[in-house]
């Protein structure tokens, strides 16, 4: 929330699109709202697609986040297609109390990598509902093992207790930054390309004149 003071700096920052994906009812919205608005939503209503923006400091650098909270139901898979293409980092959420949601992780990971046409991409595996220890159906080591195999980090958190919530989002920002730094060249060229296209150029000009 500290971004408000430094508005001009924020404008130079690229917007990072973080997409929260995972099976139905695993707590994607709860996690996102806990991060953005700092409270725990009790009611579980299925989301179709919600987006939020937030500015925050991660490692003393201001960043502008656009967080997309998505539907867990397979039925909305074409929507997924759309937002997966535009996301710069992903949180794959599953519920440690729901074996099915854990099984879906691998598929989601594969999907992201395929759409991005990359072997690795900024993705974090998040096991939610860690507070419900006695209802746990996915052991921690299982999740860690899967994360290791997919070569992505794993975090266990609880939206209810606000445990590891900020960490998950901050970590993904770090990963995205690192990834973009590593791929600096392509990103530069992407910006160049955008500048080249006449419409963009015009807009920018206007912007500068203002």
């Amino acid at each position: 929330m500290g971004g408000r003071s430094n508005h001009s700096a924020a404008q130079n920052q690229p917007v990072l699109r973080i997409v929260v994906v995972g099976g139905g009812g695993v707590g994607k919205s709860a996690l996102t709202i806990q991060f953005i608005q700092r409270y725990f939503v009790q009611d579980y209503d299925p989301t179709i697609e919600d987006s939020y923006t937030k500015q925050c400091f991660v490692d003393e650098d201001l960043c502008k986040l656009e967080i997309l909270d998505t539907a867990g139901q397979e039925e909305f898979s074409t929507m997924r297609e759309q937002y997966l293409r535009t996301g710069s980092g992903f949180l794959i959420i599953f519920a440690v109390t729901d074996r099915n949601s854990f099984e879906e992780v691998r598929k989601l990971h594969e999907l992201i990598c395929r759409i991005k046409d990359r072997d690795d991409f900024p993705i974090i595996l998040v096991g939610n509902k860690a507070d419900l220890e006695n209802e746990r159906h996915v052991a921690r080591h299982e999740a860690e093992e899967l994360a290791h195999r997919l070569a992505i980090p794993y975090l266990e958190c609880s939206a209810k207790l606000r445990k590891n919530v900020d960490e998950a989002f901050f970590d993904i920002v770090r990963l995205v930054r690192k990834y973009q730094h590593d791929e600096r060249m392509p990103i530069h060229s992407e910006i160049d390309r955008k500048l080249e296209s006449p419409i963009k150029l015009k807009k920018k000009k206007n912007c500068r004149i203002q």
Partner: protein
Amino acid sequence: MTSSQCMHYFVSISFSFPIPFYSRTCAPRSAYHCPLVSYLRKTMNPRRDLQRRTENGILIWILEAKGLPAKRKYYCELCLDKTLYARTSSKSRSDNVFWGEHFEFGMLPKIDEVCVSVFREADPKKKKDRPTLIGYVVITMDQLAGRNPVERWYTVNTTNNDTSSRIASALGAKSSSQDAPSLRIKARWQSVDILPLRAYEDLLHLLCYSYLPLCEQLEPILAVRVKEDFATSLVRVMYKQRLAKEFLCDLIMREVEQLDNDHLMFRGNSLATKAMESFMKLVADDYLQSTLSDFIKTVLQCEDSCEVDPQKLGNVSNSVLEKNRALLMRYAEVAWTKIHNNVHHIPVDLREVFAILRCRLDAQNRGALADTLISSSIFLRFLCPAILSPSLFNLVSEYPSGANARNLTLIAKTLQNLANFTKFGGKEHYMEFMNEFVEREWHRMKDFLLRISSGTQTGVERNADAVVDTGKELSLIATYLEEAWTPLLQEKNANKKALCDVKSILHDLAEYKRRPDNAAFHSPMVQQPSSDYENSPQQNVLPRHENVPAYRSTPPVGQATIMGGRSMSRPATHLLTSDDYVLSSAFQTPSLRQAGARLSDETGTSSSRTSDKTTSSAEIRDDTDSDMELENRGRGGRSRKRLPRTDASPSSSQQASSGYLSNNPSRSSYSNSSSSSPVERLAALSIANPVFGPGPSSGYNIPAEPKEVVYQKRSSPPPYDPEAHNYHYQPMQVYAVPPDCQVSPRTQAGATQANIQNRLSLPRTNPRASRNSTLLRPSVVNVPDDWDRTSDYWRDRTIEQYRNQQEMIESQAREIERLKKENLELKNQMMSTTTKIDSKRSDSGASEDSYDSLSSLDRPSRKSIVVMPN
């Protein structure tokens, strides 16, 4: 189904199989799911479920392209083995060129490759400009043969001609686009090997009686993707067995009972939710179309945005925001009104499921959950996804993009909130203005959910019974089970009565499949080589040729003689010659009768050469029989007769030459194809390709949709059913009739008795054939009493169809009678004339002459059939 839709199906059936159509026309992409098409298929080949067959189908998503220059719009064409099947809409490049369109084709012949060509649209300003071929991607079928769809980026092969080199240089000039152009395609080629329906009897029995324990076992081990496929197949089978209600309710209630958190109900992707979703797609498609189709089209045509998120809008005046809000409000109201007003169109099947669920929940004192459950079914799983991605539900063909997609998202969000009975706020504040609408409509939502789940309401009767290919679904289920049913699972369930048989059932099925010619399921009349005319797999054709024993028409000296025939030279490889063995084979019924009886006696065990041979002879007879059938059905019979032949032509290159690409024999000349308009090509297709000749519609009217007979569940051998017996006997008589009697009775009648006698009794190729066999003696094939056990199939037949067949049989019987009489007359005539004329001269001369005349009458049409594929 609306009449216009009906028309469309009808036209595509009559002009083209397979159905090439263009996505721009908003044509439903899976027309083969259409009940009418399925019904026609079944009518064309009523014995489909009695034979082993292969169903080929392809599902292909043309998703996006990258590395294309940002210039004008692009579209793709989809060719299967060089026949144009579909075209995407034209999309301009934003980030990538994104189409996101899917196509599904079933009932395909065996194809070797898919070719997706990317075109750049013509410049609208230049009149003479034509679409330019950018390049193509060829995917061979073996790459797609897996169970799951294969999705990957394919590099586009740019062609080497002038155009493409210009493109290439243009690409090179753009320093920014370093990537070579590539296409992201997701596709699955499914070739389902389907055994005769009765092979699945045990499996079907297991599914019908033990679906719940089975699902319980499979739920934790199936992957999400398989879960969806499995649930879809299962629900379709259950629907056909009239068990869908019970199955769905049991499955859903089990999930409800297991969940300790009511909020999570129906939220995940479980077998229950997947089954419910498939069921809704199966039965409520018409409802969806009638409810939302117009609305979605209106929204998509509208250019205005109804974005209400100030952050997304940027710095705009309040008036714009107000305007957008008003628009969104109006959209939401229209959508909701349409849904609410169309409540009586919800299919009875679905209402019944909802009603039972409500009852059961009430009985458990959890009645409050009923609304949540029903709303999650119909809104979260059906209506809202359909609004959000209408192209997935065949409401429109094009994938909505940009502002349109956002508009649809906002509408779906509003409706979902209404269905959740929650107000906006907390999550997205900018939507709070819609709370007024949501609160106002709550009571109507309650009313709606109650109305669709109360048994007293009468709804639309099962009008168009969605037709399910039970054999195919069962074959798929068997495949899924084979993958999932590990020895460990079997061990676990060994003591459970319900599931202990799974392994042996699967083993049996695998065993049947391993048997190449399926001797176990052969019986004199059920064998037919191919599924039906548009789908005769070549593997069936080849063995048939190989198996054709030289003289299966040997007189009843015993099986040994028949086998002896094998070593002799083969007179002809197929039926299309007018070689006489075909004829005489059909006449020599005693041997067939023997073999037939024998075969039926040893069901399951016979794999000897004898049965092998009988099989092939039965095949031959069947083939001619199908001709008869066609002839009988309608005047279009002659032209339709070509169909099996053309289809069976083994080489795909032949096929290509008959399609629109006939002027583009090689891929390098693909750019030519871009010159003709789609309409021209379609026309060319229907004219040049013999497959697209006058179709089934030309000859006869389609009878009314059959009412299905309820499948009898049973575990013991069926009770004796005299009617079924009669029914089975009758066709036998017909099938034993010499084919030519039906095919060209006039030819026969016109020939003199001597010719016929000569032709029949002195086959050029079969010295063993009896010389004094009685002419044209139709005979009844003896069928064992337990025959009906082999064909539960007939029980599925409708009364109408029964009547149709009965009529056919009767007319054929009359024909036989007539020919018998004619024969007798001719015989008498002959007897009287032989005394007067020099026997030697008349014998040889007449036979020569009339044989020629016979064959010349007979040949031309057949010749044309043989020639057609070229």
